[in-house]
C-alpha cells in the first residue's frame, strides 16, 4: 500500500497541471485523499483534522509557483506540517549533576518495554556510562528473569526485589549508589492507561525514583487509541520523551504523530528489531515519509543491509559494474534478495522506480523467484559462466531439471544477455536502451560509482543521483548527472570498511 498515496495524488496533480491557481474544489479533493492516507496510517482522527486545517490555511494564499503544480504545493504543505509536527529540536540527554541519572520506562502491555530497557542500557554503555537495570515488573511471569537474561547478554547488572514495585525501585536506587552506577533504567510493568490502580502504582514508582527522564514506550502499529492512552500517561508521569518500537514492521506508524501531537514531547528513540543493537535515535523526516506512505529509501537500505550479506552484495555490485556479472552472481543476488521480503513490497518502497516496474514487481511473487532460481540452479557451473554455450539440447535439459519450460529458459537467457549488454554500455557512460528502466538502474550505477570514487557524498546527493522522487514531479524536469568514465582495467574501489 505504500504507493497508493503517490499514485492517487499523481492522478490529481495530473489534472491540476494546467491550472494556475488551486481552487477550493481541487483543494478539497486533494485534502480528502490526504485525509484517507493519514487515517489509513493510524493518525488519530482529531490530530488528522487539525493537521489538514493547518494545510488548508497554508494553501489559502498559494501563489502561482514556477516549478510546482498546485497539487504538488498541497503535498508540500502536508509534508511540511507533518515534519514540523514530528520534528523539533534534536534530543540531548543531560546527565544528572548528582548521579545516578534515573530513566523510567512506562507504557501499555506488550509494547516492548523490557527489550527497550536492555537496548537503552546498551546505548548508555556505548555512551561511556555504567547503567544498572532495575526490574520492577513483578506482574508478568518471568519478566524479571527476561531482563536478567538480556542484562547478561550486554554485561549490565540487573537488580530486582520481589516485595513490591515501589520497594524494588527504592532498593534499586540504593543498589545503584552502592555499585557506583551512574545511570539507572527502571523497567515497569505494562499497564492499561485507564486502570486507575495501576496508574496510581506507576505514579508511586515515579515519586519514589524521581526520574530525570520518563519515557513512554509506544508500539508503531498502535491505532487510534494511542493518543488517548499517551495523554493519560503524560498526565500522571509528565513524560519527557517517547520511544517508538517495532518500526521494522510495515505499519505506517501514524501513532507517532498522534502521540507527539498530544504529549508535545519529542520522539527520542526508534527501535527497529528484536536484537539489542536495533535501536537508534528517531528520524522524524523519515517517519513523515512513512506515514504519508511514500518510499523511504534509507530504511529500505538499512533493512536490506541487516538481512543481506553485505560482502556478497558489494562484490556483486562491483562485478556488475566491471562487466563480469555472471549467472552465478545473479543466483547469489537472487538468494539475497529473497531474504529481504516480498519483492513487490520492496519495489513499492523504492522511489525513482517507474509505474511499469512497480506494477511488474507487484506481479512477482516467491513462486516466480523460485522458478528463476530453479532454472539457474539446473545449469552446470560451466553453463553459468558462459551462457552463450547453452544450446538447444542443454536448454531442454535445464527446463526438465528445473520443472520449467524451454520457453522460460530462453526468456531468462535472453534477458540476461540484454542486461549484460546494457550494463556494459552504461558502465562506459552511455545511456541505457531500455526505456523506463534507465532512471532506476542508470541512477543506481552512477550513485554507486560516485560513492566509490568520491568522499563525503551525502544522502541528498545519492537520492538525487538515483532520481528519487518522494513526491510526484510532474512539473519538474529530472536533473541528469554526467556519467563518470569507467576506470580502465577494472575494479571499482570498494569503500572503506566500517
Amino acid at each position, binding site marked *: 500500500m505504500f504507493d497508493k498515496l503517490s499514485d492517487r495524488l499523481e492522478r490529481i496533480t495530473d489534472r491540476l497541471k494546467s491550472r494556475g491557481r488551486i481552487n477550493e474544489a481541487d483543494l478539497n479533493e486533494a485534502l480528502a485523499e490526504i485525509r484517507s492516507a493519514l*487515517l489509513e496510517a493510524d493518525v488519530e482522527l*482529531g490530530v488528522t483534522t*487539525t493537521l489538514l486545517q*493547518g494545510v488548508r490555511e*497554508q494553501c489559502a494564499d498559494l501563489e502561482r509557483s514556477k516549478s510546482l503544480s498546485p497539487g504538488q504545493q498541497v503535498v508540500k504543505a502536508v509534508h511540511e506540517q507533518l515534519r*514540523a*509536527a514530528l520534528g523539533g529540536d*534534536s534530543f540531548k540527554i543531560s546527565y544528572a549533576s548528582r548521579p545516578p541519572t534515573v530513566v523510567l520506562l512506562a507504557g*501499555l*502491555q*506488550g509494547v516492548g518495554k523490557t527489550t527497550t530497557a536492555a537496548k537503552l542500557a546498551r546505548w548508555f554503555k556505548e555512551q561511556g556510562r555504567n547503567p544498572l537495570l532495575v526490574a520492577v515488573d513483578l*506482574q*508478568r*511471569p518471568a519478566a524479571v528473569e527476561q531482563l536478567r537474561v538480556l542484562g547478561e547478554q550486554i554485561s549490565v547488572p540487573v537488580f530486582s526485589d520481589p516485595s513490591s514495585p515501589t520497594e524494588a525501585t527504592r532498593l534499586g536506587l540504593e543498589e545503584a549508589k552502592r555499585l557506583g552506577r551512574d545511570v539507572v533504567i527502571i523497567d515497569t510493568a505494562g499497564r492499561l492507561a*485507564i486502570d486507575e490502580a495501576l496508574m496510581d502504582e506507576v505514579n508511586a514508582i515515579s515519586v519514589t525514583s524521581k526520574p530525570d527522564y520518563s519515557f513512554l514506550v509506544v*508500539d508503531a*502499529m498502535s*491505532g*487510534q*487509541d494511542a*493518543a488517548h492512552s499517551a*495523554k493519560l500517561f503524560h498526565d500522571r508521569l509528565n513524560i519527557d520523551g517517547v520511544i517508538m518500537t517495532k518500526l*521494522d*514492521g*510495515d*505499519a505506517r506508524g501514524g501513532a507517532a504523530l498522534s502521540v507527539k501531537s498530544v*504529549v*508535545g514531547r519529542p520522539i527520542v528513540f526508534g527501535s527497529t528489531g*528484536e536484537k539489542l543493537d536495533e535501536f537508534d535515535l528517531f*528520524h522524524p523526516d523519515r517517519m513523515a515519509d512513512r506515514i504519508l506512505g511514500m518510499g523511504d*529509501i*534509507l530504511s529500505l537500505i538499512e533493512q536490506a543491509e541487516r538481512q543481506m550479506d553485505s560482502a556478497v552484495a*558489494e562484490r556483486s*555490485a562491483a562485478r*556488475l559494474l566491471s562487466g563480469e*556479472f555472471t549467472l552465478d552472481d*545473479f543466483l547469489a*543476488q537472487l538468494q*539475497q*534478495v529473497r*531474504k*529481504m*521480503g*516480498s519483492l513487490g*513490497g520492496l*519495489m513499492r518502497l523504492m522511489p525513482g522506480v517507474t509505474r511499469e516496474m512497480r506494477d511488474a514487481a507487484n506481479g*512477482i511473487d516467491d513462486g*516466480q523467484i523460485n522458478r528463476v532460481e530453479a532454472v539457474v540452479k539446473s545449469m552446470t557451473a560451466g553453463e553459468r559462466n558462459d551462457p552463450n554455450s547453452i544450446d538447444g539440447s542443454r536448454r531442454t535439459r535445464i527446463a526438465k531439471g528445473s520443472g520449467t519450460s524451454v520457453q522460460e529458459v530462453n526468456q531468462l537467457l535472453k534477458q540476461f544477455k540484454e*542486461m549484460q549488454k546494457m550494463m556494459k554500455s552504461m558502465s562506459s557512460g552511455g545511456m541505457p536502451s531500455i526505456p523506463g528502466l534507465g532512471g532506476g538502474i542508470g541512477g*543506481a550505477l552512477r550513485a554507486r560509482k560516485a560513492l*566509490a570514487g568520491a568522499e563525503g557524498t551525502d544522502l*541528498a546527493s*545519492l*537520492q*538525487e543521483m*538515483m532520481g528519487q522522487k518522494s513526491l510526484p514531479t510532474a512539473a*519538474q524536469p*529530472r*536533473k541528469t548527472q554526467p556519467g563518470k568514465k569507467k576506470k580502465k582495467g577494472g575494479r571499482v574501489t570498494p569503500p572503506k*570498511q566500517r
Partner: protein
Amino acid sequence: MNPYILIIVVLLGLLVGAGIALSLRRRSSVASSGAGVLEADGKGASELLEPAEPKIQEAAEESAREVASLPAALKPTKSAFGALRERFGSGPITQEALELLEASLLRADVGLATTQRILAAAAERIATRSASLDEVLATAQAVVLEVLGDRDRSLSSSAPEGLIPVWLMVGVNGVGKTTTSGKLAAGAVAQGKSVVLAAGDTFRAAAADQLALWAERTGAELVRGAEGADPSSTVFDAVARAKARSADLVIADTAGRLHTKVNLVEELRKIRRVADREPGHVAEVLLVLDATTGQNGLVQAAQFTEAVGVTGVVLTKLDGAAKGGIVVAIEEQLGIAVKLVGLGEGLEDLQPFDPADFARELFSSSS
C-alpha cells in the same frame, strides 16, 4: 516469466550495494535526528523537501500545539457518542450527527473503507424517511452485526482417530500469545482435558519460563527445549509427549514475529508442518491480535493466513480503551472469525467472542 524480474533483482542488488556503502559512511558521521539530511541545496527532487519558510513553520508548530489542548480530539469513542445523544436525543438525524457516527467508527479502528461501507449501507436503509438518531444507531449496529455474520466461532479440538489435536498460537510480538496459551490451557483443564503446553518460543529471553509458570498454575504439562533450539523440534516433542501420555490437546506457543520477516514466516510454516505430522493434527491456528492495533491488523491477518492458514482470531487487551474495530475489516474482507476475546491478565480473562456485544460496544456511550 516476468520480463522485469532479472532487472529488478539486479537493480535491487546494485542499490543495496550502493546503499550499504552509503550507510557505512553515515554511521561514521554524526547522525542527527533533525530534518537536516533532507535539506538539500534545493537541487532536483529535493526542492520539494526544502525546509519551510520560518512563518509557515511557526504556523505548523502552532497547529500541532493546538491539538494538545483540543479536548474533543482526545475523548474516547464512548464520550463522542454521548455527545451525540445529548445533542439530538431521539430527534431527526443531521449531517453533523452522521459525521459523529463516522468519527466513532474511525476512532474504534474500524478503518476508513469499512466505515464508509457500513455508513453507506446504513444510510441506504434509512434514506427513504427521516430517521431518529436511535434508529440510525440501531441500523448501523445491525449492519456491523451482519458483517460479523454467522460464523463458526467454536474452537475445534477434533482430530482423526489416533491423532492429537494441536492449537497453534501465532502473531506479532507482544500481543499476548503466551498469556493466551496459558488461559486456553486453564479452560481446557477445567473441562477435564489433559493438556500439553509446548514452549515454541525459543527465541525470547525467559519465554519458556513464562509459560512454565502458566503450566504450573493450570496443571498442564510443559514441554520445553533449550533456549535457541529449533522451535519445530520442541513442538514435535510436545506432540510426541502428548501421544505417549494420551493427552487430549497440545497448545503450542510460538515466538512473536513480524509478518514482514520472510525467514521468520518460513520458520512458522515449518512449525505448522511439523505440528501437523502424525501423531499431531493442527485443529486451530489462532492469530492473537492486540485490540490496540490499528490498520496493520488487517495486513497481519492476511499475511499470517497466507503463511499458515489462520482459523480464528483471539482479540486481546479488550479491557483497555481500544475497541479492536479492525476485526470488523478482518471478518468482512478475509472471512476469518474472531473466536475469543482477552479481557485481562488473569487465568479466567478469556471469553467467547459475542458479535452483538461487540457491535454494541463499538457504538456505546459512556456513563
